[in-house]
């Protein structure tokens, strides 16, 4: 899971001082091993190339072309693809709605990710603390929402948000609190709530897995030194689960940028969600409503670039800080 465990594995090299014959045999074995390895890796590489590399190459290719039409009114003539250079990118970047969508998911990430990670860490620490009871039950219960597909989760929460149907709105009404979960100002945070509900348990589980890997002697030593539970958490557990925290943050950053299912499902219920609410939704609308696949491809590539920059930027940031400290 973490980088530590990977770097600990040492490469096995054939010993140099063995007699020649043995060496030859060894190299034959090595060749056979290599073939066997290739046999195992090939299916993965084939699928990886077909399902991952090829679509990306195709998307980049599509993003550089445009459709040209001939014939009266553009009807009836043959349409053909023409090289467009970066015109699609320029078009995407000059679209206010697309850029606003980026701003929206960045705001979303800046608020929701820290909140969710803090919550997940707290739950993980509580469930792994010495005095915790009913651990298995709570662990499963917190993790359960992750098993609900995002679309279903959004439909469920949709029912809890829509006025006239939602018991939450009804209760709020009865105590004189006028809430609208789907208004322009609130809908982003209603979505944040769905995402938090869904993924806190998952992140919690990743952190718990890392906590389990902390050697028991450390706790023992801390106890002998008279550390309180808070001190153990602060000075032993948190520093040691750092790799898992970094991992969950990176996944969350990428996931946030790709936000799609929740706004897509809530859109018919809330007129406050427009066709470019998130960059992914904007690309979808371009491709499947406007039938402008080329522009959509450019937008998807831009989205991928931003995800790359943010993820690696984040890794760099936390990596740099670790070095300063270390």
């Amino acid at each position: 899971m973490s980088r530590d465990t990977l770097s600990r594995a040492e490469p096995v090299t054939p010993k140099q001082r063995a007699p020649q014959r043995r060496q030859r045999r060894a190299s034959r074995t090595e060749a056979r091993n290599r073939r066997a390895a290739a046999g195992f890796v090939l299916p993965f590489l084939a699928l990886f190339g077909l399902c991952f590399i090829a679509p990306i190459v195709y998307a980049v290719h599509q993003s550089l072309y445009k459709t040209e039409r001939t014939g009266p009114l553009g009807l009836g003539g043959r349409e053909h693809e023409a090289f467009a250079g970066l015109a699609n990118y320029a078009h995407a970047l000059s679209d206010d709605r697309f850029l606003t969508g980026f701003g929206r998911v960045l705001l979303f990430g800046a608020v929701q990710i820290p909140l969710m990670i803090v919550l997940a860490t707290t739950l993980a620490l509580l469930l792994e603390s010495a005095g915790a009871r009913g651990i298995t039950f709570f662990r499963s219960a917190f993790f359960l929402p992750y098993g609900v597909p995002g679309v279903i989760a959004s439909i469920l929460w949709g029912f809890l948000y829509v006025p006239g149907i939602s018991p939450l709105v009804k209760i709020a009404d009865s105590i004189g609190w006028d809430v609208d979960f789907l208004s322009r100002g609130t809908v982003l945070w209603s979505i944040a709530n769905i995402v938090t509900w869904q993924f806190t348990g998952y992140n919690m589980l990743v952190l718990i897995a890392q906590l389990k890997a902390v050697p028991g002697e450390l706790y023992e030593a801390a106890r002998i030194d008279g550390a309180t539970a808070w001190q153990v958490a602060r000075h032993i557990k948190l520093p040691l689960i750092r790799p898992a925290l970094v991992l969950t943050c990176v996944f969350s950053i990428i996931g946030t940028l790709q936000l799609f299912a929740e706004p897509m499902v809530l859109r018919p219920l809330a007129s406050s969600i427009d066709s470019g609410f998130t960059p992914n939704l904007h690309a979808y609308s371009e491709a499947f409503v406007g039938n402008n696949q080329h522009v959509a491809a450019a937008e998807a590539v831009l989205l991928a670039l931003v995800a790359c920059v943010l993820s690696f930027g984040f890794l760099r940031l936390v990596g740099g800080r670790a070095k300063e400290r270390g």
Partner: protein
Amino acid sequence: MTSNPMHRRTVLGGAAALAAGFALAGCGDSGDSDGDAPRERKKGQKINLTFWSWVPGIDKPVDLWNRQNPEVQVKVEKVSAVNGEQYAKMHAAIKAGNPPDLGQIEFPVIPSFLLDNGLLDLAPLGAARHKDKFFGWQWQQSVFGKGIYAVPQASGPMGLFIRQDLFDKWGVQVPGTWDDYEAAARAIRKKGAWIETFAPTNGNRFSGLAWQAGAKWYGTHGDTWIVNIDDEPTRKVADYWESLVKQKLVKTIPDRQNAWYKDLQTGAIPAWVGASWGDALLVGNAPGTKGKWRAAPLPQWKAGGKVFANWGGSTTAVFAKASYPKDALDFAVWLNTDPRSIALLIDGGYGFPSAKKGYATTDLDVDKDFFGGQAYSKIFADAGAHVDTSWQWGPGVDTLYQRLGDAFTDALADGSSFRSVLKKVQGQTLADLKGKGLKVESGG
């Protein structure tokens, strides 16, 4: 969506997921259209045609056809009609080079399919000889230049649905004009209910209302498209609804979703400017209000006027790659004109027939009890006969609806005028069509 370990492999972002679709779509992209030239069926040869549709109960007339025509078997494949998904699928299939033989396509989106060269021109097959079987303006919806691109199936003449019991109880008259409608809205608001919702995302209905007011959003001049969304009639409609919204006489929730259905069920919204197909929608979603609804003509701009518009309506189109176009056309004409087929379609609730003959208007009163015994289809038949038939659709209407929805949503949020919406959408639509490589001019 967030933080899934799978996403490590898709670090390069949404590109992969989106592009996967394109990759599939791209396979048959390169000029293979000449490979399968249309064929003529030999006598006695058995063929299969596929037909994509979402109309409830469409399989019944198709079954009938299949029994009568053992040599030309039609297979219905149901497609989802939520948020235009069916068209996304059809466009993708055209791009991939494997569309079905026939498809259900609504009037407004026919030009979008023509941009793809997706539909077969039926004129060379002699489709014009069927023209007189249909209402003229509906036939015209799929005629562009010399080409005939679809066979009309049904239309959606607009009308007003009201809760008669509540109108009576509150002493509100059924509005005959839009001024009356505003007065009714005010009276109903005083009783704590809202006459209606102005759904900002419903560009479809807004276009119908503009149509009634005399707007002409699209036109052609030579080989140039004329776009004119920001015209005087549309401004009149925009001003009208803006005033209702600003006076807080109408809600602004989206229509045809749970909250709206709930309002219909409880009477919190006692009216709906809808269309002929709306009967099935009300029956299905507010069954508890049975017997309390009535249909009335769409309010008029001039007292005593008889100007109506259309919302919805669709066709049976033959895709450009159909292997047996002649048989596909025969089926499309039979489906929409044969009296037995029409009877089965009416049972399924498909809308208002485009065919002139083969049924009686009273046959359409399927939900008479729901409307307290009213022969409500007469209202819509009357409206259908007075639809301004010069209205024409242009390419990219799906995008136009989305633009309108986005712009109205913005306007509701920041209080800007509805006229600014029209101005904005006009500009965007010109840019969109130019972006599609079309010659286009502003009509203003």
